[in-house]
């Protein structure tokens, strides 16, 4: 019902309403502006942190050029960029079905890490003793199963007892990390805890080292898009995410959807883990996933949980990352600079979603009255 009457009187300087819709042009305009502002802020921070820049302000051009240089200057960097985007995208995609269901799975890091561990465990014990193709299949299966198990455990407890899934999945990340350390100690008796690159269980390559991985993730992206938007399962996920009551009304078994979706989510993390294990590293460390499980959450959220848009957001995050690494190289600063740059840009990009989703009405403006009318129509989430 309409409560505006009372509030108008003691209205502060402005008030907010949720937008009922926004034209894509305007939305992307806002995002582009945020990107530019963020870049300016990065420049400012860089000025404070980088001595060479302070000494020679003229190099600010080189600072910004380094972003492009980081990913596009040589074909090697470009392929590396594509590969990194692919892996990050794969993890982000894995988290997306759960997020669309409003199941806040922040355990992508752990789910991916145990999958790497699972695949490498098979490699470690069976490598060289069985045919290569069988080894690869077994590694694949092990990765999928490990990821699925890691994902489904919190889902089971959430379905049965309503255990908070955000905190549960978060904790599972660290259990996974120490599980890896444990196996490293067991497998590497000399105490160095670093497992040498395995000689077996390497994915075949086509074209160059990375093309196969990129293609697999591309296929996965399209497949997941179709799954989420054009299949019955995807539809059920959306309904459960939007309203559990509606789901019950049309006879959807909510708990079953939650568990099924988390198995899928875990298995996709498993795929990412397999690509890392068999396609790239052929070993496992506690840093095999390197925080991409967390970055993936942001990629997925920024992409509006839409696999196709997430190609863009994953690309953006990776672009910033490699650009910032390039800067640390060119300007000789600590290797942690990419995190700073990425963090700043994320603040601007996620903050701007507010201006996409909400309208600000200033006191006394004409739109103010319209807002009151809009309120009356009822605003859902």
């Amino acid at each position, binding site marked *: 019902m309409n409560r505006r009457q009372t509030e108008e009187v003691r209205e502060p300087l402005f008030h*907010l*309403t*949720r937008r009922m819709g926004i034209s894509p042009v305007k939305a992307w305009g806002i995002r582009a502006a945020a990107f530019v502002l963020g870049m300016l802020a990065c420049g400012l921070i860089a000025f404070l*942190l980088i001595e060479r820049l302070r000494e020679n302000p003229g190099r600010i051009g080189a600072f910004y050029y380094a972003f492009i240089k980081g990913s596009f200057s040589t074909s090697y960097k470009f392929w590396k960029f594509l590969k990194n985007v692919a892996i990050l995208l794969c993890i982000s995609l894995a988290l997306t079905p759960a997020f669309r269901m409003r199941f*806040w799975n*922040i355990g992508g890091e752990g789910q991916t890490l145990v999958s790497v561990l699972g695949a490498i465990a098979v490699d470690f014990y069976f490598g060289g003793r069985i045919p290569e193709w069988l080894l690869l299949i077994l590694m694949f299966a092990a990765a999928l199963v490990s990821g699925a198990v890691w994902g489904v455990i919190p889902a089971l*407890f959430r379905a049965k*007892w*309503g*255990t*908070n899934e*955000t*905190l*549960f999945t*978060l*904790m*599972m*990340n*660290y*259990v996974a990390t*120490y*599980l890896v*350390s*444990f196996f490293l*100690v*067991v497998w590497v008796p000399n*105490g160095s805890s670093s497992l040498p690159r395995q000689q077996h269980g390497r994915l075949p390559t086509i074209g160059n080292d990375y093309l196969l991985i990129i293609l697999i993730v591309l296929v996965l992206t399209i497949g997941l898009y179709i799954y989420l938007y054009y299949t019955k399962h995807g539809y059920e996920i959306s309904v459960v995410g939007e309203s559990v009551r509606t789901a019950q009304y049309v006879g959807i078994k909510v708990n079953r959807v939650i568990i099924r979706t988390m198995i899928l989510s875990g298995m996709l993390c498993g795929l990412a883990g397999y690509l890392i294990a068999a396609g790239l590293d052929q070993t496992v460390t506690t840093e095999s996933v390197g*925080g991409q499980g*967390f*970055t993936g*959450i*942001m990629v997925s*959220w*920024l992409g509006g949980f839409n696999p196709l848009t997430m190609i863009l957001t994953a690309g953006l995050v990776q672009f910033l990352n490699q650009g910032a690494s390039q800067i640390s190289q060119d300007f000789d*600063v*600590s*290797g*942690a*600079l*990419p*995190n*700073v740059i*990425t*963090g*700043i840009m*994320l*603040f601007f990009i*996620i*903050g701007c*979603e*507010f201006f996409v*989703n*909400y309208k600000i009405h200033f006191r006394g403006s004409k739109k103010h009255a319209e807002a009151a009318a809009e*309120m009356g129509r*009822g*605003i859902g*989430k």
Partner: protein
Amino acid sequence: MNVWLNFLIDSLAFGATFVYGSTGEILTEKAGHLNLGIPGIMCMGGAGGCLVLNMIGKSGLPGAVIVILGIMGALVMSMACGLLYSFLTVTLRVNQNVTGLALTTFGSGLMKVIMSKLKATVYLTGPKFFYRWPFADRQDSLHCLGILFFLAIAIAIAAGWVLMRTRVGLHLRAVGENPATADAVGINVTRYKYLTTCIGSGIAGLGGFYYIIDYMASQEAYLSIEAFGWLSIALVIFALWRPPVTIIGSFVFGVLFSCSSFITHFDWIRVTMANKPLLRMLPYVVTILVLIISSIRNKRENQPPASLGLNYFREDR
């Protein structure tokens, strides 16, 4: 001193890092905000304090002044991060998990950049003795029980007292449980969320500072703060959102974490290298068990604050 006692005191001192972190996180969560930026905030707190000490470490100022200025530095830096987090989640209503993760990325990165520029000989060598007062000259574990250690215990107890025994605490808990009701009875929800998030961040920031300057007092200490930030978030669950319980909880976590290095002193315990990671995993496993058991028992007092993770917008029904 007895090896056993030494070990226990060391665990206690180590645990103070988590006491800060989780007390800060509890305050934020009590206002309904799951702040995954706490690891980054702890990093920034450490960096802020060291930054100040780097300037005044050799200035010859009285010890007490150096101590206070260092603490101020840690507070200012971490509270600035808290302010940023509040602005994004309270005012701009951005998803809390995403904001927190971005803040952790940013904070841990910026700390490493800052710390790589500071000189340990300046910020650490001299000042650490001031912070380790009154046991600075001891050779055993007792030397870690300095000012910041006692401050941690005091803050945890005080936070518990404020939450449960004062009107402000009552209002704060109402904000985290049911912001709409709090709003309806005239509590300024936004102000409470901002203030507690900033204060909580400040407290957490002290944890990072304590770890660098007092407990570890080493040049590389800052590299492991982020991991302990995550452990602090785990501890919140373990302590069932009660700040004084974090003291016991962090002692337990401290024991589990550091026993692997102490355990070699006891020949009656057989331990292999492989057990070390498992022991370190234990705090998380125990936390998961606590989370599961409390959800199965479903005792209302032991649940996360009801509006945790949900941003409040008055016009939403």
